[in-house]
């Protein structure tokens, strides 16, 4: 795991009409790090993910991946540089089988794998996320957690330089949550770089090397999970003034 600067976010700002959803956010992510993005509801976490993946264009600021400026590129070009993501509200492809859903990541991802070879990639990634033997099913025949697994598998099949997970663990029951955390830990162990929006404290404590906390669009704190979760500003932002 070479420790070098992978993703750099500088002065990133997004204004919707009069609302500043993301306000002058800057932070870096080293290769191989798992970074948590925290913050109360509506603090701008998803918007920040959208700015990185190209779903939205920033009003100001820049995103750089290994020295290459991503700002202003359309999503498909950003995907081609090795940025893959999942969505807060799970997005699977209903008319495609689980296997085909995952193939999409490999076929159109940075490596442009041929459809034949992508099948093999998809099979092994599905196995890895716990969907081995269910390749032929369609998303509608699967549970919510399995659909989330398909989505993660699709992102992983692209073999991305950085993986953006938007509350991938949300909505899981305690057993599923443990499996989910183990899965992300295994990604960490193989040296993947992950930026994850998360509300589940157990997951943040056990997975994240570092956390960035947002509040009302601005960066409130940055540090190890223990540091930021003990930070009075962070506690105030999450729980209100009385608890600080």
């Amino acid at each position, binding site marked *: 795991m070479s420790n070098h600067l992978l993703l750099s976010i500088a002065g990133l700002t997004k204004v919707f009409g009069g609302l500043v959803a993301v306000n002058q956010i800057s932070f870096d992510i080293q290769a191989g790090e798992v970074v948590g993005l925290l913050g109360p509801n509506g603090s701008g976490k998803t918007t920040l993910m959208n700015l990185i993946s190209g779903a939205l264009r920033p009003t100001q600021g820049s995103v750089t991946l290994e020295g290459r400026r991503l700002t202003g590129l359309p*999503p498909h070009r950003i995907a*081609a540089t090795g940025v893959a993501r999942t969505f807060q509200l799970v997005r699977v492809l209903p008319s495609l089988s689980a296997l085909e859903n995952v193939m999409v990541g490999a076929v*159109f991802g940075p490596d442009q794998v041929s*459809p034949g070879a992508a099948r093999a990639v998809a099979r092994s990634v599905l196995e890895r996320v716990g969907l081995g033997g269910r390749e032929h099913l369609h998303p509608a025949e699967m549970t919510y957690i399995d659909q989330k697994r398909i989505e993660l598998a699709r992102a992983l099949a692209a073999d991305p330089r950085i993986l953006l997970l938007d509350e991938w663990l949300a909505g899981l029951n305690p057993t599923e949550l443990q499996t989910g955390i183990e899965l992300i830990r295994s990604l960490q162990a193989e040296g993947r770089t992950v930026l994850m929006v998360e509300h589940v404290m157990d997951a943040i404590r056990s997975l994240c090397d570092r956390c960035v906390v947002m509040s009302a669009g601005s960066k409130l704190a940055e540090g190890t999970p223990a540091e930021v979760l003990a930070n009075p500003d962070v506690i105030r932002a999450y729980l209100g003034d009385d608890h600080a």
Partner: protein
Amino acid sequence: MNTREVLIMAASGLLLAGLACLPLADEGFWLTLGISLAGYVAMSTAWALFSGPTSYVSLATAAFFGTGAYVVVNLGETAPWPVVLVVAAVCGALLALLAGMATLRLTGVHFVIFTFGLAELIRQLVTWYQTNIGGAVGQYVFVDISSAQIYWQLLALCGLVFLAGWAINRSRLGLALRVIGDDETVAAHSGINTARVKLLLFCISGAFIAVVGAVLAPRWTYIEPSIAFNSMISFQVVIMALLGGSRRLWGPLVGVIPFTVLYELISGHFPNHTHLLLGTAFLLIVYFLPQGVAGRIEQLRLRRTHRETHAARSPATLGETAR
């Protein structure tokens, strides 16, 4: 290619060869019907190549068709016939490229209306050109091509359209289209250049339709813009493709046959009621068969396999998948 595909190819080849014998048996009513059928199968299938997976309902068919016909008007007597067809294909593709660059950002009803307007605009332009520069609005087409030859060309074109559709379906392009049809956001974030894929398919579809226009042009002897750019063609193609089901390659074919036969019958007996038929058919299809016959068949098949494999699942989940 697996054995099933080889068998289907062989059967389709035999079927085309069999159909090609039709002019030997009859040069009258049946050949006319055959030409109609072959022309609409080629156009509806080509239309569905683009509109099926993307769900963009294009009413530009008449624009491509008329463009092909006017290539014949202008080149038919001077250039060799194969060159005329190639020029028609290129013109159709170019028109699709221009129209696509202007409109593929539009969605839903905006796209429908723009493509309809496009056909009308081009008709007006051609009328203006023919009146002020071309000498006369109407033009005679003197190309020495028999009805049987037109029929054979259309059959060959049908074969080509199906071959193209089959090749697209098994390529990266086909997968990209299915992803776009399901979720454009996911498509873009997976690395698909959605605008380029849609544009490419629109061009392929437009080129085929223009060639149909060119092949059929000699049937009329006398062509004027209101015939070549008749918007009824656009509507008929949409209705037939939707009736059959535009999400399967063979879908439009299933729609063209009953519709064309019915249309020939009704326009023969009640020539003033064809619009009524079109309108009613359109309403019925949209209401009762939104996925077309092909979609309906798939649905029933899916439901049957469901019942076999998931006997214990709740009805609610079944309804969800069937929809």
